[in-house]
């Protein structure tokens, strides 16, 4: 298959259009963080840095970040354990209902967040009598984060196959040693990528959080939701978003570095 010059240019321009589609709204966010208008009127009449200095003073944002990190780390950690367990079970054993498990794992992310949200809220508060709070947020987030860890790990396990482990066992290493020296280093990248994705999913989650957050807990998206509709606060939200965009390059860079093991690009 060869690609004509014309197709090539067409593809380049489509890529450009796609990136423009992705980045123009993000640019609007960044520009609006300097917009004098509190209600984002376009085009901006004048620019100011006052929202940035106000955002730095804002203790609500810091508090919200703290909650978001707690929820994200806990949910990613739990999802890491649960997702990896399932991935190992599914890839190493055959048992009744194995096919159903992959369906079960996908279910929480394929059902709308609002369904998961009200189902959990209803179960916690009506059936179990558990107060909503950090605990319930973590349970909710973990539920839909399991799938990303599971998929990352199972893909890697399929790729490395079982022969390395067998070799290790044949050479006299026991199960634990084999896991520590052979399996773990091989799947570390997948674990990390899965955890980063899980953390990211949790960090930007709003719908399930809305229904599982208790009094006094505002994760960052909830804080944004509460403040986006308030004229004095909305520009600060843009500052936070602009900062998030910048910081987001960091984990992406890391996950790229750690999981980027294929280099098939540039062939044509």
């Amino acid at each position: 298959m060869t690609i004509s010059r014309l197709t090539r240019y067409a593809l380049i321009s489509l890529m450009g259009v796609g990136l423009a589609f992705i980045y123009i709204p993000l640019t609007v966010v960044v520009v609006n963080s300097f917009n004098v208008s509190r209600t984002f009127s376009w085009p901006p009449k004048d620019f100011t840095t006052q929202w940035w200095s106000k955002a730095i003073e804002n203790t609500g944002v810091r508090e919200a970040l703290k909650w978001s990190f707690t929820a994200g780390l806990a949910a990613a950690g739990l999802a890491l354990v649960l997702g990896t367990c399932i991935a190992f079970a599914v890839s190493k054993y055959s048992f009744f209902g194995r096919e159903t498990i992959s369906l079960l794992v996908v279910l929480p992310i394929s059902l709308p967040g609002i369904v998961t949200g009200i189902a959990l809220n209803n179960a916690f508060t009506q059936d179990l009598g558990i107060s909503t709070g950090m605990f319930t947020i973590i349970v909710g987030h973990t539920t839909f984060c399991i799938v990303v860890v599971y998929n990352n790990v199972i893909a890697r396990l399929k790729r490395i196959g079982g022969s390395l482990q067998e070799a290790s066992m044949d050479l006299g290493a026991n199960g634990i040693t084999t896991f520590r020296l052979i399996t773990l280093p091989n799947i570390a990248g997948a674990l990390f990528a899965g955890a980063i994705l899980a953390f990211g999913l949790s960090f930007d989650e709003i719908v399930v959080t809305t229904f599982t957050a208790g009094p006094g807990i505002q994760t960052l998206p909830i804080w944004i939701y509460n403040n986006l509709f308030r004229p004095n606060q909305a520009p600060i939200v843009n500052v936070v978003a602009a900062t998030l965009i910048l910081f987001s390059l960091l984990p992406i860079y890391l996950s790229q570095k750690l999981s980027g093991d294929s280099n098939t690009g540039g062939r044509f």
Partner: protein
Amino acid sequence: MLKSISTWFHNRPRVRLAALLVAPLFWLVVAYLGALASLLVTAFYTINTFTGNVIRTFNLGNFQELFTNPSYRNVVVRTLGIALSVTIICTLLALPMAFFMAKIAKPRTQKVLVALVLTPLWASYLVKIYAWRTMLEPNSGVIDWLLGPIGIHSPGFGFAGIIIGLSYLWLPYMILPIYAGFERLPNSLLDASGDLGAKNLYTLRRVVLPILFPSIVAGSMFTFSLSLGDYITATIIGGKLQMLGNVVYQNYSLNLPFAATMSMVPIAIMGIYLWAVRRTGALTSL
């Protein structure tokens, strides 16, 4: 000690399997499916018309309302239309982009492009949708400001606005699996098809698309299901239009049993969808 435990486990694969599965299954089956089942039961309850308290007596009134009130049928059809359009738009945009990223861009550029496509996933969902409000604003929005001179005008808030906004939000979720699919596709296969005399389009249709199908389905799981349940986008850029999620959200605080009834609609739709795509192997390529 450790060694003996390890050996003990090694000789009992069923026990190892049980140990691996007990925690995750407890989580997913008891906590998650249990909560869904409880919601299903609630769908058959009713409320006190004044205080809104749930009355736990079994009746089919909610389902009757759902099936007989034409406005709910409309909202279901409209939401399905939006979710399908978003999925199709995302697929059409993602295919060339992912192909370019995986097969044409140089390795360095490739990494940058992947990062560029991923970045918006980390910017807050709400902020992105509000940015689209600024974009779509009729007459004074960014679209009219940017493209007005060449005669393109913003569709404004409403059906088209929601489709654009949701396509924007979920596009990366479509690009990534397709990109991964292209990466898995050996170049030699494309060459072979070319060598055998196939035209590019023919290769695309008969070789590439069948192999990519699971990836597209995987991406569509996100674009379709996330659109199906969304209510915030419709609130912010939907004008006076509402989606299925809005009905659930409004009724959650007004009439919980009816909200539960409405939730059964996306559950049923996604259930059918998952059942249909399970065979394609898409579930593991998310």
